[in-house]
């Protein structure tokens, strides 16, 4: 078990997922070819439901970056960004997407055909600074219409009516912009249906994650790629149908007592974004009969939407998805991890100190202390980067993890 390279996936649903990924990018290229406007938008917000309800295909640079990392083209994009003067200290998503957009977009043989050039851009204030700045670079580079909006950063526990109200006013502005750009009419009933799909997807997501409470757990963090539908196909039946399949499969595994590994002994929690270029790392723990059964990142989708209040629902989603997993709402995040430790029977936690993501990495020392002092759960932190393989040392990872796992085994 080297722990390097691509993960060994076990869920049958991965075959369907591969098709969904290909279809998503093929749909984007088809829209472009047919002259339907393609918009590049920031991730983790309620715009996606609006887009699908208006027959507009969204493109998410932040979803594209992990694909580049997994396939290996991120290295070329990093070099392109650096040659444009962008510091290597910047987030890997930023460097990949800027490098691709500025100098790589016309290159042939891009994975999945690449992202088709945008016909318009949605540029937020905040979200996280690198995402905000990525879109500012794109706005400067592409000579296309831009919709500028806000995404105020508010801790989830501090969200009040005026935040939602402001979100709704901006969505209404955006609707006007989209109608003008695309010529498509907004229909509140269609948005309501899209919101209902997202609500159902989130419900299924929670049910899928809940199956991991079972011992042995039916799947590990190595299958985190199923999150693709939560990022790109919210608001559609595609996500709901796929997640139903996944739920059926993992429930069956639980019923049959089939785990990721035959003799599960140790259950782990993972904090921060995975190393997209090395998803097989999650399998590394198996030599100690250990499985990663819960993560911070996957909890970004633990929410409910109200189809009867579609505008408010997507405003609320926009306000909460990112703070749920970042340091905007550190108390909430700590609370979430404490609950996961109890719900999933966690024996130890792996914290990825992620040089490419300050908002998610800040607060990890607090998390470690809470785990140990309040829950007696040991944890280990390793240095890495969710996009840039040159910032991750397998030897150092192994040294830290091996010692940690030995210690956990002695406690078990």
């Amino acid at each position, binding site marked *: 078990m080297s722990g390097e390279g691509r993960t060994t996936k076990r869920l049958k649903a991965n075959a369907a997922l591969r098709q969904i990924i290909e279809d998503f990018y093929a749909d984007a290229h088809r829209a472009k070819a047919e002259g339907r406007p393609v918009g590049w938008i920031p991730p983790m917000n309620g715009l996606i439901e609006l887009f699908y309800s208006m027959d507009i295909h969204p493109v998410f640079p932040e979803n594209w970056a992990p694909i580049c990392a997994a396939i290996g083209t991120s290295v070329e994009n990093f070099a392109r960004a650096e040659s444009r003067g962008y510091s290597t200290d910047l987030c890997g998503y930023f460097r990949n997407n800027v490098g691709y957009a500025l100098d790589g977009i016309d290159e042939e043989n891009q994975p999945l055909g690449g992202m088709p050039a945008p016909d318009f851009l949605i540029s937020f*204030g905040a979200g996280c600074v690198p995402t905000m700045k990525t879109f500012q670079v794109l*706005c400067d580079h592409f000579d296309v219409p831009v919709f500028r909006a806000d995404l105020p950063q508010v801790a989830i526990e501090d969200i009040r009516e005026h935040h939602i109200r402001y979100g709704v006013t901006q969505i209404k502005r955006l609707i006007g912009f989209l109608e003008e750009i695309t010529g498509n009419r907004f229909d509140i009933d269609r948005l309501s249906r899209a919101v209902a799909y997202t609500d159902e997807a989130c419900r299924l997501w929670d049910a899928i994650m809940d199956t991991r409470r079972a011992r042995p757990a039916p799947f590990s963090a190595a299958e985190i790629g199923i999150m693709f539908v939560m990022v790109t196909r919210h608001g559609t039946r595609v996500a709901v149908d796929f997640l139903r399949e996944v739920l059926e499969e993992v429930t069956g595994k639980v019923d049959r007592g089939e785990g990721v590994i035959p003799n599960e002994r140790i259950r782990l929690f993972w904090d921060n974004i995975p190393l997209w270029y090395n998803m097989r790392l999650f399998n590394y723990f198996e030599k100690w009969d250990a499985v990663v059964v819960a993560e911070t990142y996957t909890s970004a989708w633990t929410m409910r939407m109200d189809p009867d209040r579609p505008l408010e629902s997507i405003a609320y989603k926009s306000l909460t998805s990112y703070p749920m997993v970042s340091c905007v709402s550190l108390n909430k995040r700590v609370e979430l991890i404490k609950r996961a430790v109890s719900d999933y029977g966690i024996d130890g936690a792996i914290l990825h100190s992620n040089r490419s993501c*300050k908002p998610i990495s800040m607060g990890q020392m607090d998390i470690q202390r809470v785990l140990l002092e309040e829950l007696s759960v040991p944890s280990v932190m390793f240095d890495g980067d969710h996009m840039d393989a040159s910032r991750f040392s397998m030897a150092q990872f192994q040294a830290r993890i091996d010692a940690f796992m030995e210690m956990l085994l002695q406690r078990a």
Partner: protein
Amino acid sequence: MSPRGEDALIIPALEPAGPRRSRQERAVIVTDLLSGTICLSTREGPGPWKGFKAFEQESPVASFPELYEGHAGILERERGEHGRKCVGTLCSYVPVELIHSFGVIPVRIWGRPENVDISDALLQPFICPPVRQLMALGMEGRYEFLDGIVHCYTCDATCGLYNIWVRNLKPGFSHMVSLPYVDIDEARAYAVAELEALVDALESLTRQGFSPESLGRSIALYNEARSLSREVYRLKAGGFRADYLDIHYMNLCAQVLPVETFLPRLEEFVEELPRRGRGSGGRARLLLSGSVINDDSLLAFIEQRGGEIVADDTCLGLRLLGDAIPDREPLESVASYYLGRTPCASRADFPSRKRYILETVGAFEVDAVIFVHQKFCDAHLSDHPFLKRVLDDAGIPSTRLELEGVGFDGQVRTRIESFFEMLEAR
């Protein structure tokens, strides 16, 4: 109804400062603030303002460096003798007028490049030096005198710092404001709601009700301080002799002192500058761009080496000196001020960054720009290639320095020297 970046930019005004209030008038304002007196009726005569040393003394007040070095003592005296509370602020977007209107002193806090490693217990090494330095000072207990902390969300690192600070140092009071990024009617209404939430929090802290009149008086003091500070920049740009370090300490004092303590020295400084006469000129006129630059030796070295820093684009200087806040609907006016002010790199889009840099270069007749970046600062690092291109196109040479939190090292020194050699060869 246009996004922020398309609006007119608020560039530093180069007109002379407006009519000034006398020291006594200012004292009355402050005393009213503290006593809860609403009426501004006693502007003549000594009034009940005795006890505010800053207004009583007729002898020259301390220099800005002296005031800054002694600010902890000044704050302690305000706390001890006048029972005023002090609230730490992490960012220039915290609406200080509002805090001041409750009689509370807003104190901008930052760190020093010493013992930074103790922050390792709470922060990773890839977090920017200013945030790590500040956390270190907080962990050392240097800010224990504060009654609380207020932040306004700007960048990821300070947002994380705020949360980690609150969890670990457990201040008695904490509040975060989240201002919008676009300057439209709905955004202003939202910003007012955010300010109202801060008002609620301050009412709980002080057990005082909010007074629009009191806020109006605080606004007047800050307006005056900003107007006089702009005047200092104007005088220096006009050739009157002042080191940028003088201005730097003026800016620091503006952030850490009660505004009524800061004003007398500022007024003297404005009066003193023309008496100093004009410099010989001939030095390269520079604009400094970055976030928090608190390294005296770097600033001094640049000017000793032959540059004249006449303008800045930092979290301490010109960008904070927007036009006067109007004397009406005070909460709305404060909201409009912070939304309309020249935005920082963490809040601005590229068009507004470009406009500020080019207009400042033009207004201050800048010859060259020095970017002083803190390592790992996402906002400034992301802007730099764009701004460099803008300056290249305008024929303005620029260089970039990167600070790693331990003072400016030999590499930075060499870079500055090379830059000046290049400028001299032009």
